[in-house]
């Protein structure tokens, strides 16, 4: 059971073309909607049944989110696709854009229809040059085919879609910063509420979903919500693309059923590089807390199981870490990322990320003090939940994971100035 949803064209030659997409049943759902004017509520019900949860990181149920849009409200509304894909370790949206762009287009068009939004924007990160070109090509094909534009196929339904390229800032993946950036402003998150559903692009109601979320919709509607749900396990419907990276033999994107045991996924990836033992896994992108091998080897890959173990599915970026990796260095590298990417708007994140990063680098430099560890936890706790957007949380959460499971490595370095992993190896 692989590559059934977002990657369903993957086995074809030039899977990104309209022809390839049509050959797997692409745009059938859209044409059907245009013809039959399927009631929006029916579509939302299917999505709810499917238990599709947002693939951007927060895992918010997509059907529910769509139902929040004030559909009856007059005036312009927007659907926006978040293809910023900035979370370190994540590279799944890129492959959807490169290999199955039409499915995203169809998903967004359906979203536009359901939420009575006649304009869509697909916001891609600044580095996505190739995906952008593919999307542009696909958009042209879709327009030429008459599947987008005004009064599409004489249905009286309008939907225009635009590709937009950002300038490469992690924060622009946060939905309200993305909206600001889309409006041509500095990418800084807005305070919520109001949520985008009430006050989004240009102050109009806007729905923001991740690329994978939108791209899942046509397949769900084609086969029914129940079919999708059944692909996975209860409450964790369907498949999910995991971007697996790190110390494994075959890094890459794996679209697999939710609830697959981690060890099976590891198997699919060819196992550990050099057959070294597994030390730990960061299961959902750099902002999710690290989990030790012992925990990982026992759990399944789904929201509930990973959540119970103390981490998150997040964006689905699975980073596999082998024995011998220094967790202090990993923590410092992670902290540095958030320090660099904080937008600087609100105090705890602006000041706290820099503080954490500096303390960790000082420890690496052999200048650590034992009280630094309590302070690090405290700084993380003080950022957590006190910021405008979740970047602060994203910076704070991993800290807890590192300190919870690998405190001894930090203490060792503070005391001796050496890496715990080196001394372990030498002792062995």
């Amino acid at each position, binding site marked *: 059971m692989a590559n059934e949803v977002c990657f369903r064209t993957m086995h074809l030659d030039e899977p990104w073309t309209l022809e390839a997409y049509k050959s797997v049943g692409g745009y059938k759902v859209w044409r059907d909607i245009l013809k039959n004017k399927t009631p929006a509520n029916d579509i939302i019900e299917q999505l709810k049944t499917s238990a599709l949860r947002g693939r951007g990181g927060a895992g918010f149920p997509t059907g529910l989110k769509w139902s929040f849009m004030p559909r009856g409200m007059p005036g312009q509304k927007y659907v926006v696709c978040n293809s910023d894909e900035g979370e370190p370790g994540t590279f799944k949206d890129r492959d959807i854009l490169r290999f199955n762009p039409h499915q995203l287009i169809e998903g967004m068009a359906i979203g536009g229809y359901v939420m009575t939004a006649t304009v869509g924007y697909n916001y891609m990160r600044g580095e996505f040059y190739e995906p952008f070109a593919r999307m542009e090509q696909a958009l042209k094909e879709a327009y030429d085919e008459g599947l987008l534009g005004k009064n599409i196929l004489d249905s009286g339904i309008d939907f225009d879609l635009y590709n937009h390229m950002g300038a490469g800032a992690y924060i622009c993946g946060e939905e309200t910063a993305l909206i600001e950036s889309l409006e041509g402003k500095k990418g800084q998150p807005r305070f919520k509420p109001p949520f985008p559903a009430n006050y989004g692009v240009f102050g109009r109601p806007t729905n923001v979903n991740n690329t994978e979320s939108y791209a899942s919709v046509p397949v769900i509607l084609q086969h029914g919500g129940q079919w999708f749900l059944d692909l996975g396990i209860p409450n964790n419907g369907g498949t999910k693309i995991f971007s697996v990276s790190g110390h494994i033999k075959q890094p890459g994107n794996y679209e697999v059923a939710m609830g697959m045991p981690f060890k099976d996924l590891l198997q699919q990836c060819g196992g550990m590089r050099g057959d070294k033992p597994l030390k730990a896994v960061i299961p959902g992108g750099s902002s999710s807390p690290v989990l030790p091998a012992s925990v990982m080897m026992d759990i399944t890959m789904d929201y509930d199981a990973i959540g119970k173990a103390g981490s998150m599915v997040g964006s689905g970026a699975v980073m596999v870490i082998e024995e011998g990796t220094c967790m202090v260095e990993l923590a410092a590298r992670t902290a540095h990322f958030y320090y660099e990417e904080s937008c600087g708007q609100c105090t705890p994140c602006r000041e706290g990320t820099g503080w954490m990063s500096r303390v960790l680098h000082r420890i690496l430099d052999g200048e650590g003090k034992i009280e630094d560890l309590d302070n690090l936890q405290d700084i993380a706790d003080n950022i957590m939940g*006190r910021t405008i957007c979740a970047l602060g949380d994203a910076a704070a959460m991993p800290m807890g994971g590192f300190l919870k499971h690998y405190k001894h490595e930090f203490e060792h370095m503070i005391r001796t100035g050496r890496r715990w992993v080196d001394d372990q190896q030498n002792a062995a």
Partner: protein
Amino acid sequence: MGTVTIEIDGVSLEAETGSMIIEIADDAGMHIPRFCYHKKLSVAANCRMCLVDVSNSPKAVPACATPVADGMKVLTNSTKARIAQKSVMEFLLINHPLDCPICDQGGECELQDVALGFGNDVSRFTEGKRVVQDKNIGPLIETDMTRCIHCTRCVRFGTEVVGMREMGATGRGEHMEIGTYIEKSIESEVSGNIIDLCPVGALTAKPSRYKARAWEMQSTAGVSPHDCLGTNIEIHHRRGEVIRVVPRENEKINEVWISDRDRFSYQSVTDSERLTQPKIKKDGQWQTCDWETALTHVCDQLNNIKQSEGVENIGALISPSATLEEMYLTQKLMRGLGSHNIDHRLRQVDFSSQFEAPMFPGMEFDIDALEDMDATLLIDADLRREQPLLALRLRKSTRHGRVMSVHSGEVENNFKVSPNVSVPASDLLAQLQGIVAALIEQHKEVSAELTELFVDIKPTPDQQTIASELRINDNACLLVGQSALEHSKSSHIRWLAKTISDLSGCAFGELTAGANTAGGYIAGALPHRLSAAEESNICGWNTQQMLQKGLSAYLLMNTEPELDSSYRDAARVSLLKSKFVVMMTPFAKGEFLDYADVLLPIAGFTETSGTFINVCGEWQSFTAAVKAKGEARPAWKVLRVLGNLLELDGFDYVSSQEINAAVKERFESTTDARVGHFQRPDSLESGGEKPRPLSMYDMDSLTRRSLCLQMSVQGQDNWRRDQIEHLVASQSLPETESPDSLINLSASSAESETASLQESSDA
């Protein structure tokens, strides 16, 4: 909007739905710490200092951005709230330099205050602190950007209140810096407000930097002398020296803002060369003398000229920013002598309808009503230059309403104007006539005479739009600008404006020169009317006649006509040619040194009590903040002594309040009946011209002498720079006061004042 009931720290409070927790707490006098929140700015919610504990929320929430809900229970002081607040405080302080001992904000710093309550005495932060390069943003504002806490109040002020994005945030994260991007001077005419807004010492006032500590200063309420709004200010002084001027909140007039000239013009009285002793010119040489000698000389000369040339050859010109009391006594002195040559309308050119003018020109609606206007027509008004704070008010109306303008010359507004009709001064009348014609077309009942008068005028689409906007909207007004009254056909303009207002039903307003044109009218500082618009059987000469035809003797009450009037060349010729010029001025430098014969040192605007009547007819009295320099005296006292020496009746006032009361009594017993209305002319006029409007910092003798204003971008752009440059002292020496003058300064009643004048002359 309905109301809900919420509870803050156990106190039950009524709250309007949609309002934020912090507003309700503020109204109830309960303090929640904050930095980014400001009641006049949008909510940014970025500092996180205001985190409070709200029922049902697992996280602490920002009080400035959390709307109230019925039954909501807020705890500002629970453990959860305290921990959140303390943690934010710690974050704010880690990279702050904590250089309070050398920071100008020390003692009045919001960060310092809040840190006292929420900070720790020892820091856990042992890393290197962030340092930010300072920016030079001009002569008014000093920056120390390492102290910035990124609250963005200064940024939001520019974007939201002024409509000029001068300050901005560049860079991300810890590298975010507040500044002007490319290092450049701030240009806005209200820029100084960011000094008050900045909660820390990142933005401080350059001219008063390091001059005094907040706790050393005393504060005296004042009224700004620069424009007709009557902006409320607070004058801060220490040991008799004015240190700075800051806003005094008055929601009806200036809200919490003041313009840069309101803020910095005090420099003219503190730093420019002041006249500290009376002087008499003898054989072309200026000689210092005592008051008695000077005033006796003035009396003798005035009496001589009255004898030899006739009293009609004596006249007085008064600054439109003189106080009501000064205006009243000056005209009383002149009329006492027998002359009606009195005027304060220095920039006016067309006096043909002066008998039809109202009791005083002004706005027939409140200043704060402007922000609710759905349609506003500006007639030759350049608000940013003339009444900067009015521009901020009107800008607010453009969120929902429409501003339209018909003007001559270059006008740059900081809000959207449409239609925005710019024409040569000679076409202004035709434009307004077009609007009247459009209104006549749109109107049902217009008198036959009026219709007949406009029968040949074909309105343009813009004129049609303006007419219908003013007519359709209930909340509509028009404002005749200050410079419209400098037009050579201003009488016709005023009649047209009034007609537009009558036909469209929109409210009418005229903006006037100086701080006290209304006071000038009411005090009777006019050649054709006595105080409180009482009819005069003699009509004296107006400014134009006095300066163009020439007089033998002039009394100049705090005005330099060659710069203040519209008649520079004529003024210079007439003043030089005349036999005797008495100059009452606080300043030692000016072209008057050439033409005056006696210099009488008077108090500067921070040194005298008095009253300004603003454009809405609001009487605002103030007291002296500090004592006048050297031998200088409040002008009303000088005029009083002069009146007595001239043996005129009714100069026995012991205080400025007494003078004020006298005018007020006359004013209140007046009925409108005594005041005329603009008459319909027999035919329509056309053409006309307007003198080039004065630059923003060349409008009065104070702005001309304020060094920092002259150094600012606007000041550098003064088009008469060459004429006023020499007035600014680059560096003035501190005054040394003689013991004698100290005795005089304590004198207060009329008797002792005269006596003290004599005493010091005896000595």
